[in-house]
């Protein structure tokens, strides 16, 4: 794949693949989608542009931490996700910009459903990705998750990777 031949569909397929890996609990494979300096962040609800020094994020992972997060969730002692919950992720309204440039920006709405012990919770919001080409494929440089919720009630937690 080269810059010249990359299409919007390639990017969209890449995101669908990401969602599929998460839904299938292939979390190490998910972490492998990130560049060496990749980040994964969830700012506070209602403060999407908050500074991580002045406000408390839900998640503020560098590459090492997101790897730890993925590996932790696969352990039997990650009690909240053992047995694994059932999850279903949908990405909608996908807007791709900068296809010809070094960093492609993608915005999409997401709906992530999680069910465990017959309780269904739904997380909704907007993902913003920075995607780059690497080793003949695509890689995530950053993923930012903005929750469009009033609070984490009744969800109570973000034990999943959103």
């Amino acid at each position, binding site marked *: 794949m080269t810059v010249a031949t990359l299409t919007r569909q390639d990017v969209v397929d890449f995101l669908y693949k990401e969602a599929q890996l998460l839904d299938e609990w292939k979390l190490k494979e998910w972490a492998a989608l990130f560049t060496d300096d990749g980040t994964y962040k969830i700012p506070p609800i209602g403060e999407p542009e908050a500074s991580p*020094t002045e406000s408390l994020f839900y998640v*503020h992972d560098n590459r090492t931490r997101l790897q*730890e997060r993925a590996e932790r969730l696969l352990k039997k002692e*990650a009690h909240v996700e053992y047995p694994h919950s059932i999850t279903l992720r949908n990405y909608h309204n996908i807007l791709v910009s900068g296809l010809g440039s070094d960093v492609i920006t993608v915005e999409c709405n997401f709906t992530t459903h999680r069910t465990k*012990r017959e309780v269904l919770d739904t997380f909704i919001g907007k993902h913003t990705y920075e995607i780059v080409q690497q080793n003949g494929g695509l890689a995530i440089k950053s993923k930012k998750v903005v929750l469009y919720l*009033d609070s*984490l009630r009744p969800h109570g937690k973000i034990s999943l990777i959103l």
Partner: protein
Amino acid sequence: MEELIRDNREKNEFLVHRSVFTEKEMLARERAEIFNKCWLFIGHETEIPEKGDYKRKKVGGRNLLLVHSQDGEIRALYNTCPHRGALVARENEGNSRVFRCFYHAWSFKNDGELNGMPGKDGFPDDFNCDGSKNMKAVNRLEGYRGFLFVNFDDEAISLEEYLGNAKEYIDLAADQSEAGLEVLGGVQQYSVRANWKLLAENSVDLYHGMPTHKTYFDIKQAQDPGIKRVKLEGKGKDLGNGHAVMEYVAPWGRPVAQWTPIWSEELKQDMDKMKERLVERFGEERADRIANYNRNIIIFPNLVINDIMAITARTFYPSSPGYMEVSGYSLAPKREDEEHRMARNNNFLEFLGPGGFATPDDNEALELCQEAYNNNQEVQWNDISKGMVRGEENAMATDEIQMRSFWRQYKVRIEESMKKEVAQT
């Protein structure tokens, strides 16, 4: 009266009847005897530093408006229009001299005084001369080291008297900073599908630390090969009035002055300087306590201040026996250096909060307790005896004296109500 708590010091056995987690009647009694009479945390003074600053708060089931009034006073106004009841302030926070109810456009100064309404000629000249049409304020609001509390019982003892021995431990957290502590933005509003008292227990329970949070300690060990075996050693203490604390060595970095290898060399030098300054201010022993020891504090009934890998305050309130709303705060020194603040916040997020590597597992443990209480008919008692056999004055941090202190106070307060047919305020 049914027995709810069996405190058998001869047998060294402490039992709590599981109906306290599931019965609606118990929740009504708790509202009457505990939430309507105890000091409840509403927020921190740094949330409303300027005149006109306000923030909506839910405390003890009420909709309140914490406001820094124009006269400099901090008030907790009931967020309801004295006219017909509508919620007056609808934005979660802001700065305003006036609050205006949109329904009939009555407006109020930020101390609650009625300022005006349309169609004044339809009311008598002496309307509101007794102040009954002002937004009402909670009569009792008091603070300690920046932590603000309200009490809905006008006859309650003062906050300082109520906090009693717990003040020493709040001081140890507050003394970390010469400039004082401040609340960070993004207060975490979440919930747990479990009884509120399970979170009070869990927050001062070190016994569950290793089994429940093994994945966190695995990560800590990988980060710092110097930690050969993570130990959680220290003391548990009853502070009176239902308050309790566990104080123990920190197997993780503390942003007060205990460095850990994942942090930079510069940070190490800074932390050494911080420690020196603490020694200057407080002497070697107290400086050690402030920098190198963790404290999990429960302030009865529903405030937890954990001075651990960062400082968090959490308060919680039940909307039903099996569901609580939690508010989680992060507190840090004012004007903290940027690198220190980032190290602190990363430390916080690694363990704490709904997206951390530990708090969601606590949440799960509590929910599994609540779910399995549907066996209450046949399996009736929780055991909270650990450490009694040692004598309460010798309690270790991994014992359960912290929880027994909570339950002994609970028993004192609820027993009175059990003599009555139904809960009465």
